[in-house]
């Protein structure tokens, strides 16, 4: 029998991490733990999940498809808008109203911000936002939270280092806002061009949470519980010389990890380019590939919750 919280989550959409209360987030994380123990079950037999990827994504789409397939569900959809009726000029409204006749749940990624919220308002089935432009990517945030809780044993009172592109990176913004529920201390390490935007710092100020900004992190790395690395993209810099100056400051190397805490783990939403040197991969503190695996279990927990199966 489903508990009261499970009933409350049934038929809801997940568009933004703020759609879920702290209790609901914790419930998803607990369910994720269950799926990690037993990821292959026939819970979604007879269910059809549509994956509508209006822009290409490898990891997120495959992770969702793997999650659903392992639970016996079927997948329909497209992985590129060029192969869909969108290329013929169909509106998102019409695509959603058509597709929701064919499936029990929609997973969508779309380059336009707010598209998933809009889709969730017109669809008769739950919608999971798998990324809407630079706005939200809540399943990434939930798998990040799961990875943090699993490696640290708690979400409370942690010191999180966010490194790289803190200006445009939607994953860091969502994770920062989600982690602010658990008295986190933040260290933001970014070049001047890619600093955390003021609106997010204001958000932390209003909550009375501590954050520190740095341009380099070699001296302070020993304080970190989690280092969340992101890609510094060359095209974000107006001046190529500026990029050349900073590009190596934000590359994590194995030699830098000597004095780090034993519990410290390195996370990265992937794909990585060169910001984590390959010599880090064999260090037990490197956690990014396990983090990607956790994505499958997290998405199983989310899909089953929204369908009211778990």
């Amino acid at each position, binding site marked *: 029998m489903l508990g009261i919280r499970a009933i409350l989550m049934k038929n809801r959409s997940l568009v933004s991490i703020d759609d879920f209360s702290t209790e609901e987030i914790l419930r998803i994380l607990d369910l994720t733990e269950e799926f990690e123990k037993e990821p292959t079950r026939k819970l979604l037999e007879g269910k059809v999940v549509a994956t509508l990827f209006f822009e290409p994504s490898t990891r997120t789409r495959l992770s969702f498809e793997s999650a659903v397939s392992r639970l016996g569900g079927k997948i329909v959809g497209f992985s590129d808008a060029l192969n869909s009726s969108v290329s013929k000029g169909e509106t*998102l409204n019409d695509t959603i109203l058509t597709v929701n006749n064919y499936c029990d749940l929609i997973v969508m990624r779309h380059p336009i911000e707010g598209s998933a919220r*809009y889709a969730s308002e017109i669809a008769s089935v739950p919608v999971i936002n798998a990324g809407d432009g630079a706005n939200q990517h809540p399943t990434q945030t939930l798998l990040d939270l799961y990875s943090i809780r699993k490696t640290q044993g708690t979400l409370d009172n942690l010191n999180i280092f966010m490194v790289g592109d803190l200006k445009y990176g939607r994953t860091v913004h969502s994770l920062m806002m989600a982690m602010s529920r658990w008295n986190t201390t933040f260290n933001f390490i970014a070049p001047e061009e890619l600093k955390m935007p003021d609106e997010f710092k204001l958000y932390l100020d209003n909550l009375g949470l501590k954050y520190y900004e740095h341009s380099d992190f070699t001296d302070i790395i020993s304080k970190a519980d989690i280092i969340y690395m992101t890609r510094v993209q060359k095209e974000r810099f107006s001046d190529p010389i500026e990029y050349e100056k900073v590009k190596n400051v934000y590359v994590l190397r194995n030699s830098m990890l000597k004095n780090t805490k034993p519990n410290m783990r390195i996370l990265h939403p992937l794909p990585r380019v060169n910001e984590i040197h390959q010599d880090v991969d064999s260090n037990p503190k490197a956690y990014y590939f396990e983090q990607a695996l956790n994505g499958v279990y997290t998405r199983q927990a989310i899909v089953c919750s929204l369908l009211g199966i778990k």
Partner: protein
Amino acid sequence: MKETKQMSVSAIQNGTVIDHVPANNLFKVIQILGLDRIDNQITFGTNLESKKLGRKAIIKISGVFFEDADINRIALVAPDAKLNIIRDYEVVEKKVVEVPDVIVGIAKCMNPKCITNFESVTTRFKVVSKKNVTLKCHYCEKITNQENLQII
């Protein structure tokens, strides 16, 4: 002085007078309240002198009494507007506008990548600050502030 003003925009017997509208937003107020689509008698004056606003406009609408929720829709463009409710040539009630908590279908989201700028979606904002009106888009979650505010 008072008499001259009354002459420029004639008095009404019953209805609503909206005063202290910024002159440059007069037509936005008319549009938001849908005054261009009703049959009632309406007179307005604009570019009138105002100590507070520099140049103000005034609108007199015969036979129309607004609900608070309707009148608050003009708060984005005329935050200092004052309403006089007139019955039999007398002011029987005065009202001020209040910025509502949610703005639906009046403002444009300033984010060019927002869905509301691509498909026919009614815009919807949460008002995060009422003092210096700051709106958060319900769809793309980006902030539109007073400087970027555009009325649809």
